[in-house]
């Protein structure tokens, strides 16, 4: 049985190499990981922007640079043009006796308050030297936004594997090779496992490589692989269902869009919903996978919590599998 499954795996790997699919599955997440690596520092440095004139006092410019990203402009008109652009930046121009703050008007109120606060500090002559505060630090190095992006990348990789299974099956149906399986000694379960193996191996490999590229070397690898493996199970079931249920690529594409909905919804729910509304997302296995990954990547995970999350992903996946089994069998027949 195992030999037959491995034969399907080898055949799929061979076919995938021929049409560059394997390269895509592996290279795409790694390319995205490199993208996040280059992209994340820009996002994490997203402090407030202040626009000043080049001929503003050196003391004022140096003061503002301590607390905000400062951009310098040659004239008030130039500064106003910059303030009017799409992103959020507050300008400050000296108008005797003090500074005037220039904003577009539709910014987040926080920006104007921040600019007012900084200007007040400057007017009152408050500097860091006056401060009596002390900073205690856990010396964590990974910002939460990077963790969120990486977590989304992991779910995206898992979803990609499901999509590829779905499209692969649709094409096998178009080529009539699915029917051919029924006259081989491979059982239907063997075919399902064999067909999924390529996705499992390549996706887990991509997850590991991407995490290494992104600098997550000291996380609990066993936990992350366990979550990856269990959430992948669900995607494969969905991938099979979509693939077998779709007669053509347009139906498979529609299915892909449908799968994106609970995944995107789970991420948005976890990140945006208030604590008291989190229960509304408990039905989604992707919610539990995202939560578990979030805890693991931010090194806040403990085994009991991860096992509960994994158990729920597994339980919901199995439930869907049992419900979907007759349809999968019918599709394969």
């Amino acid at each position, binding site marked *: 049985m195992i030999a037959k499954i491995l034969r399907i795996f080898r055949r799929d790997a061979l076919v995938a190499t021929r*049409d560059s699919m394997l*390269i*895509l599955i592996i290279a*795409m997440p790694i390319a*995205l990981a490199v993208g996040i690596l280059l*992209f994340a520092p*820009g*996002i*994490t*440095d*997203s*402090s407030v*922007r202040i626009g000043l004139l080049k001929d503003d006092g050196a003391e004022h410019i140096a003061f503002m640079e301590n*607390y905000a*990203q400062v951009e310098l402009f040659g004239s008030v008109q130039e500064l106003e043009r910059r303030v*009017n652009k799409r*992103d959020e930046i507050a300008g400050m121009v000296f108008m005797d006796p*003090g*500074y*005037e*703050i*220039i*904003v*577009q*008007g*539709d910014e*987040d109120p926080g920006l*104007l308050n921040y600019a*007012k*606060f900084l200007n*007040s500090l400057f007017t009152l002559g*408050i500097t*860091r030297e006056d401060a*009596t*505060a*002390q*900073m*205690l*630090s*856990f010396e*964590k*190095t990974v910002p939460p936004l990077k963790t969120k992006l990486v977590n989304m990348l992991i779910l995206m990789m898992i979803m990609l594997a499901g*999509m*590829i299974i779905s499209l692969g099956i*649709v094409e096998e149906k*178009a080529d009539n090779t699915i029917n051919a399986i029924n006259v081989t000694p491979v059982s239907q379960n063997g075919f399902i496992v064999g067909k999924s193996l390529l996705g499992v191996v390549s996706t887990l490999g991509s997850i590991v490589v991407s995490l290494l590229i992104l600098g997550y070397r000291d996380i609990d690898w066993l936990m992350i692989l366990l979550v990856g493996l269990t959430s992948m199970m669900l995607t494969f079931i969905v991938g099979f269902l979509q693939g077998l249920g779709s007669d*053509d*690529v*347009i139906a*498979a*594409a*529609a299915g892909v*869009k*449908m799968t994106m*909905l609970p995944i995107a*919804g789970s991420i948005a*729910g976890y990140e945006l919903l*208030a*604590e008291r509304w989190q229960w509304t997302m408990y039905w989604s296995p992707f919610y539990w996978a995202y939560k578990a990954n979030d805890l693991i990547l931010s090194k*806040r995970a403990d085994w009991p919590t991860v096992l509960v999350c994994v158990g729920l992903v597994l339980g919901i996946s199995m439930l869907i599998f049992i419900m979907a089994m007759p349809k999968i069998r019918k599709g394969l027949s």
Partner: protein
Amino acid sequence: MKMLSTYRKEMKIAMRGFYFYIEIFIAVVMLLILLVAIKENPDSKQREYVFYDARPEVVELLFAKYIDEGKIVPAADTEIVMKPASFAVKNRDTGSTVSYSFDSAKTIMARTMREIDVDDGRIKKTIFLLDTEEDVLRLSHSSGQVGAIVSLGDRGTFSYRYILQGYETERLTNLLYVYNARSVDVLEQEMDRQAVRELGSTERLNARESAVPALITFAGSLMGFFIVMSYLFLDKDQGVIRALAVTPATVWMYLLSKTMVIMTTVLISSSIVVIPVMGLKPNYLLFYPFLLATTFAFAAIGLLVASFFDSMSKSFGVLYLLMIAFMLPGFSYFIGSFDPVWLRFFPTYPILYVFKMIMLGKPDVPYVLTASAGFLVGGLAVLAIANEKFKKTLTV
């Protein structure tokens, strides 16, 4: 005329299929999410853990003023469970490091306060007043949220120790140093004296409305790119493309009719989301031409990409990569201060900006019309290239 009948035929086929209704269904789901799950002014999830090393009367006095002003609202005590944990804390000012290890879980009832935005009544942050310094450290470490230990000095002044996670920018740390260097009253008085000049409209989209431009850009316009490819490969699989050779319709008409089907679908699905959420606020006379022009442009890009491949799975890599690249401006849209120059070269960047402008109801009309014309002309140019490629390959 021939064009119209080709479009009608394509539309009939699309309406017989599964995809058209999925698109409508997803639009309805998105609408329900917007109306039910996203509040117009959502409360912030920010939490702050504070320990006041001072007599309870002093703490009461400190909060009484803000409670009277309506800036702070006391809430019911919150039960918080702390898990076993071990970590080290470095004092950045003295350089000393202290290690902590907590072997057992601990449950506490924390006094809870909510900081309220007096303008719109939303919760800005939730403050938990804790009984010990260790509790603040434990909770700040496990949650990644802000922590502070406030001590009352001999001369009646407070001194602050802030708890950083470690990844905060230097600018934020500098700000925390001076944050409480003067009393809040002095700072507020000075802030009120600041002269402010607004250059434009002060109207803003609320949280629910803000999601609309992103949804119609990514689930509307951009989706045309993905779906037109699927339609094309479906026709290839079914041999419709070959049948085209024996009809009077040209390849150009065929491609244009496909994009028109996508435009019709996006028009319907976007209207389902926009009209109930935005009502009469947007300028629809500008919205629909811009929506159609951008959808057309992306569908044309989809056709061009499809012309390089002969199956959906082979084109999948390029499709996936382009879709993700086109979605990157979404970060800039939602994170106002993140706006690198390179992001402005992505077509979805101006699309988000123009949709937002239209939703606000006071768009820069010449700019929106120029942008619509730009996408239309660009789309036509890309479609012309795709047409030439398809004509050469014959098999489409």
